[in-house]
């Protein structure tokens, strides 16, 4: 009965799109209600920080930037805990023209590279560091909302997410004219799209957190098994989206969410090794000021408490 439903909200990191399909499917199919949660999905936006909204209690759950933003928030003393990781591998890739001057990462030197300073820059820095290149050896610029400068040849290397910009680029340039650089090829993984709750929630309402995870998992599994239906659900929330792009997005997101440790342990798995590697890297490059208590920041107990069968895609 409705009276027993517990009110809660999920703050996304961006506006409704297939990147968040599982949550929308779970809500549409009543999985949250079945778990006793009356969930409101709040989209994000530019200049909104999920960590902040969750820490202050404005929202119960959050799908925030990634491991990097969780570290930064903990470093600043925001009382949040990560309860699951969505994208197991780095969603960013660096794209260049096949027939262009950049053949290897060493060729980045002296070239114009654009990237976002919202997390992707750390990936770039990490890859450069592995290759022994200093950031000031190339021209790193903030990246536009548009891929046009790259398409027009004014930029040598551009940052893209597998699921969004890469699609736009491919739709405006011949597919086989592109060459990509992938972080994992350089031994780096920055898991992103982290699920977070306030410390107080984790401590006082563990059942709520588990219920939320259970329902979300069901939603995502449904989304993966019926992508067309899932895109329908998303587009009901945001009807002006481009269907083909959303279907592409869901395919890519599925790949990111089920890659790596998730293939064995299931969706939202927290890969402690990957987290530790990322933490050490951020510490080394001064993104965070001091070592963090990783066990406190990443609480895998909630996701682990769910039977493996329910987690596996």
């Amino acid at each position: 009965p409705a009276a027993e439903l517990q009110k809660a909200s999920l703050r996304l990191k961006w506006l409704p799109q297939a990147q968040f399909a599982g949550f929308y499917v779970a809500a549409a199919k009543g999985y949250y209600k079945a778990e006793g949660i009356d969930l409101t999905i709040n989209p994000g936006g530019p200049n909104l920080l999920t960590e902040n909204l969750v820490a202050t209690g404005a929202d119960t759950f959050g799908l925030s930037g990634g491991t990097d933003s969780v570290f930064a928030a903990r470093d600043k003393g925001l009382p949040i805990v990560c309860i699951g990781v969505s994208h197991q591998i780095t969603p960013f890739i660096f794209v260049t023209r096949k027939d262009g001057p950049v053949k290897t990462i060493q060729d980045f030197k002296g070239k114009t590279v654009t990237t976002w300073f919202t997390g992707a820059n750390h990936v770039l820095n990490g890859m450069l560091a592995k290759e022994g290149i200093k950031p000031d050896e190339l021209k790193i610029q903030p990246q536009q909302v548009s891929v046009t400068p790259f398409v027009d040849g004014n930029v040598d290397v551009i940052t893209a997410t597998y699921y969004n910009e890469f699609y736009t680029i491919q739709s405006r340039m011949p597919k086989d004219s592109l060459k990509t650089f992938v972080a994992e090829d350089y031994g780096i993984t920055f898991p992103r799209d982290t699920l977070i709750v306030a410390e107080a929630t984790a401590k006082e309402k563990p059942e709520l957190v588990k219920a939320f995870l259970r329902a979300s998992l069901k939603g995502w599994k449904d989304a993966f098994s019926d992508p067309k239906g899932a895109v329908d659900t998303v587009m009901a929330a945001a009807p002006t989206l481009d269907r083909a792009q959303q279907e592409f997005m869901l395919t890519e997101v599925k790949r990111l969410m089920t890659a790596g440790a998730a293939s064995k342990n299931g969706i939202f798995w927290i890969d402690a090794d990957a987290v530790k590697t990322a933490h050490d890297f951020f510490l080394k490059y001064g993104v965070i000021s001091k070592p963090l208590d990783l066990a406190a920041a990443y609480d895998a107990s909630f996701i682990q408490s769910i039977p493996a069968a329910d987690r596996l895609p």
Partner: protein
Amino acid sequence: MSRALASPSLAVQRGILGAVLLIACWEGTARGLHLPAYVLPAVSDILVGLWAKRAILIDAAGYTLLEAFAGYGLGCLIGIGLAVAIALVPALRSAILPLATAINSVPVVGYSPLILLWFGIGISSKIVMVAMAVSFTILLSMLAGLDRVDRRAVDLMRSFGASRFGVLWRLRLPTALPLLLAGMRVSTVRSVIVAIVTEMLGAQGGLGWVIYQAVLQIDFVQVWSAIFVASAASLAFFGLIGFLERKILFWT
């Protein structure tokens, strides 16, 4: 607005009293309720942060003001130019005015996606946005000023044998100045805000960019420091044009 600000010393004292009370309330709330910085930092913390990051903030303010000035200048030129063109060739009025009104009926921020896509996230998109925001106000105030001219004064000039251009130069432009300058004064604050708002959607520098970065780094003291600087920059710009206005319009 300027009249309300430029009052005798009792008014100034009261103004200072008001400001002090506001700051005291803010400081008291933040400290008394132990609000974390990400909810509301104390004024003293903001000022300390401002001082610590002054180099960055001054750079950013310079960048933003550059955009605002350039866009403001461009917007004024466009607005004045169109108004003068309409004054010299009245047939243009029915062509330009409806178009300008239609363009202006969409809030400026609505254009930001298009402008960012067309002009990139560099300085040019900010300049274009500011120019768009400013030019319409200037066009309207300049036109109102030019139209305000006394018909009889125009007749007087014509009776002296003055040409259309002579009437414009010696009579209509000076007549339009008070309204034009009032429009220019109001547009100053707007130009800075539009520059900052556009920066937040994508930029390579400036106060909006600093605010955006600070939000991502969860550095709310810096967010507020940048807001303080933005506010001070706007006030300075406003004051500058207000000062010029009083200098130029000695006769009013």
